[in-house]
């Protein structure tokens, strides 16, 4: 189990996804149990891998090799696909496992049986496998394959509500852009393969010399992945996708976006770590700022609760890009500031997963009770659903970065790091946060305050437990951020900061 944990975290949900339709033919109860057991298994595996990586450094697993650690062929070059898990990958895997534990139980009651529950669970498991695969793989073409696995599974889930006309439209738009992003990525891989005859990330990273062709490939990588992470001005698919997917599945879409962001960091920090200049860092910073401002402004006018929260989610991507982008700019000149900013950006990924996850769960609960997400028709739910109102308020405050919640803990690091680079960056980021707070205050008032509305069905426990888990996470991460920063976030941030040579050494030796 120990040595095989990284591959089991990917292969078991794949196998589980293939088998889910068969299991569902036997019994529906068994299927629910099966799906939940696999999500639990994945969470255990990624936790185990993370503990291993944080304790002993980069873990390598060669697929089909004579031993899992034999990375090189006789000529001292890697030939097989390998998983390479460093601090950042393990951290990303942890987020995926955590949100799987939240999303799958919530979906058990949220998706009605007659609406294709089996198929949606199949796609969810495949999406989960793709996300973990993206986080762990150390091979560029394999990365592309998992990018497509997540794209297709995600779009199937976005188009889930096929009886409305909006869901297929959102899914078509998203699929078009995902396909384009995957093709850009594939073209970049093809260019690198044509030049260096290799596909292994670590090996290519050592070969890259910053030639003109490398830059063409970098441009293709950037355009592909920035499309997939919904960075402005390429963000227009994301609110539709997040808004139209069933709320329980939107959580997986959020992790999907985050893992694409992780792919961007992997390309920039590891693959191009040796030849990068600050210009790319500034590009990331600029797009991050643009994303948070544009998304916050667009959120103001939304009448649909799902889309409003979706814009909030998109804006948080901007904060991560700002944090890590600042780290990228200052990496060479002021490494100490770079580490602070990187910690902020990386920590914000975890916080964003929890807060945005909780917000979407609240949206899902509201929609489940009232059957609509239109702010004009909602109101007065605070009397009937006090717990949901409390969770929504908590998550909104955390999203806006109000102390002592977790959003504050990571945003203060981002502000601190970016202030050293330029106070203007910090000012813009703070303003966007305030705007978001205003938007969410309006949403809270519109949905939960007002004259009492009778709430018919009681919320089942399968809704409440995931919400309680996320809420506890938000509060704990906000009250004692130091422990998590030290144990989980710092290894991940350091993997980006100075971890490139460790990553290469784990694969190539020396």
């Amino acid at each position, binding site marked *: 189990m120990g040595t095989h944990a990284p591959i089991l975290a990917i292969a078991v949900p794949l196998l589980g996804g293939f088998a889910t339709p068969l299991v569902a033919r036997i019994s529906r109860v068994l299927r629910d149990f099966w799906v939940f057991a696999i999500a639990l298994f994945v969470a255990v595996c990624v936790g185990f891998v993370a503990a291993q990586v944080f304790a002993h450094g980069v873990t390598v697993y060669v697929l089909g090799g004579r031993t899992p650690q034999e990375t090189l062929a006789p000529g001292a070059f890697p030939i097989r696909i390998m998983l390479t898990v460093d601090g950042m990958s393990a951290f990303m895997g942890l987020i995926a496992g955590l949100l799987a534990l939240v999303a799958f139980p919530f979906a058990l009651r949220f998706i009605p049986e007659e609406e294709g529950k089996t198929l949606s669970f199949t796609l969810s498991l495949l999406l989960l496998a793709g996300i973990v695969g993206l986080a762990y793989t150390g091979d560029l*073409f394999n990365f592309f*394959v998992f990018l*497509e696995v997540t*794209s*297709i599974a995600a*779009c*199937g889930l976005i*188009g889930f509500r*096929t009886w409305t*006309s*909006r869901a*297929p*439209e*959102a*899914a*078509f*738009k998203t*699929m*078009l852009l995902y*396909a*384009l992003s*995957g*093709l850009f990525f*594939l*073209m970049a891989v*093809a260019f690198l*393969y*044509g030049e260096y*005859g290799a*596909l292994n990330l670590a090996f290519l990273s050592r070969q890259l010399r910053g030639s003109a062709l490398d830059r063409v490939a970098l441009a293709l990588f950037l355009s592909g992945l920035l499309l997939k992470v919904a960075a402005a001005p390429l963000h*227009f698919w994301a*609110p*539709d996708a997040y*808004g*139209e997917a069933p709320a329980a599945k939107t959580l997986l879409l959020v992790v999907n976006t985050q893992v694409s962001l992780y792919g961007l960091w992997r390309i920039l920090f590891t693959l191009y770590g040796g030849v990068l200049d600050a210009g790319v860092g500034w590009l990331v910073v600029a797009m991050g700022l643009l994303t948070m401002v544009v998304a916050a402004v*667009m959120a103001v*006018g939304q009448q649909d609760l799902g889309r409003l929260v979706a814009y909030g989610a998109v804006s948080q991507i901007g904060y991560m890009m700002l944090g890590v982008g600042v780290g990228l700019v200052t990496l060479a000149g002021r490494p100490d500031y770079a580490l602070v900013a990187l910690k902020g950006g990386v920590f914000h990924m975890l916080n964003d997963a929890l807060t945005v996850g909780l917000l979407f769960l609240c949206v899902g609960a509201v929609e489940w009770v009232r059957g609509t997400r239109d702010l004009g028709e909602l109101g007065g739910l605070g009397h009937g659903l006090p717990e949901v109102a409390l969770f929504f308020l908590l998550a909104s405050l955390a999203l806006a970065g109000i102390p002592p919640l977790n959003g504050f803990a990571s945003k203060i690091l981002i502000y601190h790091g970016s202030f050293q680079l330029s106070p203007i960056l910090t000012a813009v980021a703070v303003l966007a946060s305030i705007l978001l707070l205003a938007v969410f205050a309006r949403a809270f008032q519109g949905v939960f305050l007002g004259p009492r509305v009778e709430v018919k069905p009681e919320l089942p426990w399968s809704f409440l437990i995931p919400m309680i888990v996320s809420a506890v996470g938000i509060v704990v991460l906000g009250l004692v951020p130091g422990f998590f920063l030290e144990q989980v976030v710092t290894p991940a941030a350091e993997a980006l900061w100075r971890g490139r040579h460790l990553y290469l050494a784990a694969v190539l030796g020396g």
Partner: protein
Amino acid sequence: MIGNLPFVVCMILVALGLWTLVAKRNLIKLVIGVGLIQNGVNLFLVALGYVRGGIPPIYTLAPAGAPMVLPTPQALTLTSIVIGVATTALMLAFAVVIYRHKGTLDARKVRELRG
């Protein structure tokens, strides 16, 4: 330049696909544009693997002594073709459902979700 003509042709195919995405507004034509890009990339991958005077990398009844072309790009192309089929199938399914709802395939008319 002349030596690279096959690569250039593949890229022209990709560019045609990109132009389709920019210029056309029919959902099916958008799918065709994505398909063009996919085919361009697949051709590019296969072209990368060619070795002058090479034979297929298969030993069954092969002539002795001839150089073999590179096998990896062929494997990658196989993967990428299947992925392309999957993408196309899913997009066409969405287009069919949109047509069922709206009675049109014009992207300008189906846009309910703006901004």
